[in-house]
């Protein structure tokens, strides 16, 4: 079987792990080949890729949506062509009305924000000042994680933590570092950095070090548990991250697609859980991702 | 065949081959798409002479010179430098072998200083191998002193007038201390005074044994400066003679292949009502208090030295750079003209002095060039251009003006300068103007075409058009004008009637 895969963005660390998980898994299966395309964060390009897949006669399609609100149109195109479709990682807006032979495999974004914020809250003892670094503003993951952070910090246990600054660093490490430096130079004081992803958290960490701030005075939290992040945690610089099982999602998506091709039944929603990573359980994750 | 670099090395060593001719070209052929620019052409330059090249526009003069200067390579034929066969494949080859050229079009870098322009690629170096700007400026000052040029070495070339830029080109060419100096129409932007200056320079170079090729369309210059001349026609070599052996009419016959009886076919036509009347027109810092009138059928010539502000007055009249004060009245009614669009609406037309910068749409074809002004208010219905009717008009006009082109779809940049000029005159004649302003209408134009343009201007005057003609060529102003207005440094210094006007009187007013 040939499966066409459209990934929102190739140069995204997390999605790279997911993509590789997928192709590594496909190689272990006999007669399954993947045609992976880069949608370059462009909804229209993604839609076109699906149509190109259909024209090329693939057996199934896996989509990591650029824009989760644009999935209705894609679902329709695939179901009109009677080709199975699996969404991965990002939750399609039409999840509750997915046509026949379509499914969704992911983790719940809000969980990432929640786990991250709860751990920060715990480490701070429910009191202090935090800064929030957001991913690209147009990205759903960024918005949902940020919203979850707000929700957690609004709970009774964590009300004592105030968000003193909130800005975007576009998922980027250097932008994260520059943002922190700009804040420090403005005299902003904070006890925790809550970042939407690890890259920005690492940038924050670098900037704080460069400014000579002791790392044990600041709680730094990210999401993804990338190799760099785990290394930083091992060094004692990063305090919190959240493991999203990218490879697991990729494998799940391929499995679901193959089942749909064979006409077997598949759950509409397959959730791969997020897992909190702290220095305590760091060792369990160093071999993953 | 000897390589250019070997020859250059020989020249540097000071060895002087004793050949009769400095530079020769034999059997040269050069083709451009659709045009044979040169066909089996021969040219020989003796040392210590000024050799003029004559020929109509498009005869191939510049093309031959560009071959000698290493810019084009000939399709066929042989170039010999001091008796040695050589293939010049770049301008650098030519320069290093002692061939320098002043091009027909100015070739300067406007944002660089005079000194930087002159010494480009040969800048004096000082400490650490860095360029020594002080030395470069001193070198320039020395050169200017030798050539008696009064220019600031540190001025930006872009701030200079066309005439002064031409002087910079001349100084630059001289600075190469070459054996052969090619000058392609160096005086087309100069007035009498700088021309005299240039001739002095040329004479002293000739005495040093340098061979000079001199291209011009001005007959009088030929007899004043050239020792011998060669004539080309339609890319073919016609002949070479000593300039003392022939008369002006002989040369014209060789160039054009027919007689031109009347150089300035000015007709006496009845002068009508006042069409244009200008009162106290001023443009701050440029010209002041210009007042004059032009009547139907009248040709008003404007004379003056280069930089006297004649072109600026024309531009102000046409709304290109509107005047800051003063009034313009047409047929007795005051009008406000602050854009060319309004000028055209008032049935004015303006042939600008710089064909390349403000005239031709170089990459468009001849018809597109001719029709652009008339489209302002004619041949357009509901926004659509009435192509068929317009094409016919353009064909007619091109035929009437004898524009030499394969067809009207030809890019105008492939036409010779004179034919470009005729097409531009056609552009304005199509608008059926009642006031026509011509700024240097025959600059760089050959004798035949010049006579034709003059005939056309006369014809328009006969049809009642009021004409203003700016010209730096004295015979042209004297020959064509009913009245001459003379300007000096932005002011009018006097008017002369056709009957009383002489070269001396005009010069007196112009230099006052």
């Amino acid at each position, binding site marked *: 079987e040939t499966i*066409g895969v459209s990934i929102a963005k190739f140069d995204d660390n997390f999605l790279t792990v997911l993509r590789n998980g997928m192709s590594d898994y496909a190689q272990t299966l006999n007669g399954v080949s993947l*045609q*992976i*395309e*880069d949608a*370059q*964060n*462009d*909804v*229209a*390009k993604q839609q*076109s890729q699906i*149509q*190109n*897949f*259909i*024209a*090329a*006669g693939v057996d199934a399609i896996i989509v990591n949506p*650029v*824009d989760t*609100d*644009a999935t209705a*149109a894609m679902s329709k195109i695939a179901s009109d062509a009677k080709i199975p479709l699996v969404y991965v990682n990002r939750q399609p*807006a039409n999840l509750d009305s997915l046509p026949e032979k379509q499914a969704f495999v992911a983790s719940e974004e809000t969980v990432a924000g929640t786990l991250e914020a709860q751990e920060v809250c715990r480490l701070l003892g429910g009191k202090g000042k935090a800064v929030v670094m957001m991913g*690209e*503003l*147009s*990205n759903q993951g960024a*918005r949902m994680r940020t919203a979850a952070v707000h929700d957690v910090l609004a709970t009774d246990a964590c009300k004592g933590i105030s968000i003193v600054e909130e800005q975007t660093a576009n998922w980027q490490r250097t932008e994260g570092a520059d943002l922190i430096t700009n804040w420090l130079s403005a005299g902003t004081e904070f006890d925790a950095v809550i970042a939407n992803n690890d890259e920005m958290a690492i940038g924050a960490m670098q900037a704080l070090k460069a400014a000579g701030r002791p790392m044990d005075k600041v709680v730094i939290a990210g999401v993804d548990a990338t190799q760099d992040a785990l290394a930083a945690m091992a060094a004692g610089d990063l305090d919190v991250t959240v493991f999203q099982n990218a490879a697991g999602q990729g494998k799940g998506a391929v499995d679901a697609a193959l089942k749909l091709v064979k006409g077997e039944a598949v759950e509409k929603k397959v959730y791969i859980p997020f897992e909190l990573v702290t220095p305590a359980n760091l060792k369990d994750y160093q071999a993953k991702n | 065949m000897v390589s250019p670099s070997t020859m250059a090395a020989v020249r540097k060593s000071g060895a002087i081959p004793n050949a009769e001719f400095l530079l020769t070209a034999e059997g040269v052929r050069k083709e451009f*798409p*659709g*045009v044979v620019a040169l066909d089996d052409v021969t040219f020989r330059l003796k040392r210590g002479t000024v050799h003029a090249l004559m020929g109509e526009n498009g005869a191939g003069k510049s093309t031959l010179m560009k071959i000698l200067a290493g810019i084009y390579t000939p399709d066929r034929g042989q170039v010999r430098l001091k008796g040695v066969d050589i293939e010049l494949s770049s301008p650098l080859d030519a320069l290093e072998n002692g061939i320098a050229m002043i091009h027909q079009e100015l070739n300067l870098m406007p944002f660089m200083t005079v000194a930087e322009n002159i010494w480009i690629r040969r800048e004096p170096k000082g400490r650490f191998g860095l360029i020594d700007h002080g030395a470069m400026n001193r070198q320039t000052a020395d050169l200017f002193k030798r050539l008696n040029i009064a220019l600031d070495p540190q001025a930006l070339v872009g701030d200079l007038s066309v005439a002064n830029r031409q002087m910079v080109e001349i100084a630059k060419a001289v600075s190469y201390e070459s054996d052969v100096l090619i000058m392609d129409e160096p005086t087309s932007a100069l007035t009498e005074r700088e021309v005299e200056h240039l001739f002095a320079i040329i004479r002293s170079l000739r005495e040093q044994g340098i061979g000079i090729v001199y291209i011009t369309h001005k007959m009088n210059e030929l007899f004043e400066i050239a020792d011998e001349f060669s004539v080309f026609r*339609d890319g073919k070599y016609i002949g070479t003679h000593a300039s003392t052996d022939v008369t002006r009419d002989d040369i014209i016959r060789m160039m054009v292949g027919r007689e031109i009886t009347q150089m300035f076919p000015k007709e006496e036509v009845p002068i009508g009502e006042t069409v244009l009347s200008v009162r106290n027109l001023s443009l701050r810092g440029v010209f002041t208090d210009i007042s004059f009138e032009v009547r139907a059928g009248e040709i008003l010539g404007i004379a003056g030295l280069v930089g006297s502000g004649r072109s600026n007055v024309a531009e102000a009249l*046409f709304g290109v750079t509107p005047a800051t004060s003063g009034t313009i009245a047409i047929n007795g009614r005051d009008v406000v003209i602050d*854009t060319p*669009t309004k*000028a*055209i609406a008032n049935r004015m037309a303006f042939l*600008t002095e710089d064909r390349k*910068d*403000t*005239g031709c*749409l170089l*990459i*468009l074809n001849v018809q597109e060039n001719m029709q*652009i002004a008339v*489209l*302002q208010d004619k041949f357009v219905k509901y*926004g659509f*251009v009435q*192509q068929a009717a317009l094409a016919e008009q353009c064909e007619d006009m*091109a035929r009437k003006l*004898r*524009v*030499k082109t*394969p*067809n*009207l779809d030809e890019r105008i940049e492939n036409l010779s300068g004179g034919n470009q000029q005729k097409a531009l005159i056609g552009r304005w004649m199509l608008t059926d103007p009642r006031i026509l302003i011509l700024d240097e209408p025959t600059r760089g134009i050959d004798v*035949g075409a010049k006579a034709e343009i003059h005939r056309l201007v006369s014809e328009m005057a006969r049809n009642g058009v009021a004409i203003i003609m700016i010209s730096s060529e004295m015979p042209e102003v004297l020959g064509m004008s009913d009245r001459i207005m003379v300007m000096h440094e932005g002011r009018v210094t006097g008017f002369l009637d056709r009957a009383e006007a002489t070269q001396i009187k005009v010069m007196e007013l112009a230099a006052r």
Partner: protein
Amino acid sequence: MANNAAVHGTSPISPPTRRKLPSEFNIFLVLIAIALVYELLGWIFIGQSFLMNTQRLTIMILQVSVIGIIAVGVTQVIITGGIDLSSGSVVGMTAMISASVAQASTWPRAVYPSLTDMPFIVPIALGIGIGLLAGFVNGQLIARTKIPPFIATLGMMVSARGISKWYTKGQPVSGLTDQFNFIGTGIWPVVVFLVVALIFHIALRYTRYGKFTYAIGANMQAARVSGINVEGHLIKVYAIAGMLAGLAGVVTAARAQTAQSGMGVMYELDAIAATVIGGTSLNGGVGRITGTVIGTVILGVMTSGFTFLRVDAYYQEIVKGLIIVTAVVVDVYRQKKRAKG
């Protein structure tokens, strides 16, 4: 033609009768060549025809129709000797704004709950209008302040992207009415593209608007002296380019059935590439819409071909860059050769 020469020439050198092919012909050959290479490789490696597949033929053009709509405007701008870097951002901005008044009342999170279920003409007109406005601002800046088009439109590019992010604080705008979505379905985007191309093909070749556009690009100063209101005309051209980018934004939103602030990123470069591949000169004065259409189709064919041949995504971009360059090199080379021969 040969007759004319005799008429105009004072001495009739009869020119070699040159049969003139339109300049887009070159690039059309490049298109055919690319398609044939794919066809051949298809038979060899995939055992399928590349071209004999209506679905593929449709998607080839469908996927670039938005780029094509923009490119029609960009072509006009480039013919005047300018450039428009803002079109991609204007697509994003107009997609957001027009979608925000195209939402169905059934959608729970409408941007303007009181403006739901509008007739489809309202969001379309609004999108086009906003695009027009953005283009008008570009034109005003360029014509009045004389700053380089590159900078004026770069400023607009950055600002318009900012506006589209700010407009709903990054939230996508979804739940659009079926009426509105309709123009994005099936081959409607292709139809819109071709109609727009046809209109401006005619406008450029047969109207005064077109003649003035070329004249300004060929020599702005000469155009001014010939009576053209250069400033006014430039404003028109940039406004039209903006309007078309606005239309492209509407089509993009309708096609995705949602609007998102990141829409249209880098489209300006694809549109410029399509235009230049199609033979329009970045120096101004030269270019045709037919060429631009072919250039656009080349981009589409290339993309479909990659998927068809299962070219690894990592190589696609590398090869895409090569093809863009090669197409223009071939064009330059053939033109030079024709000029010589």
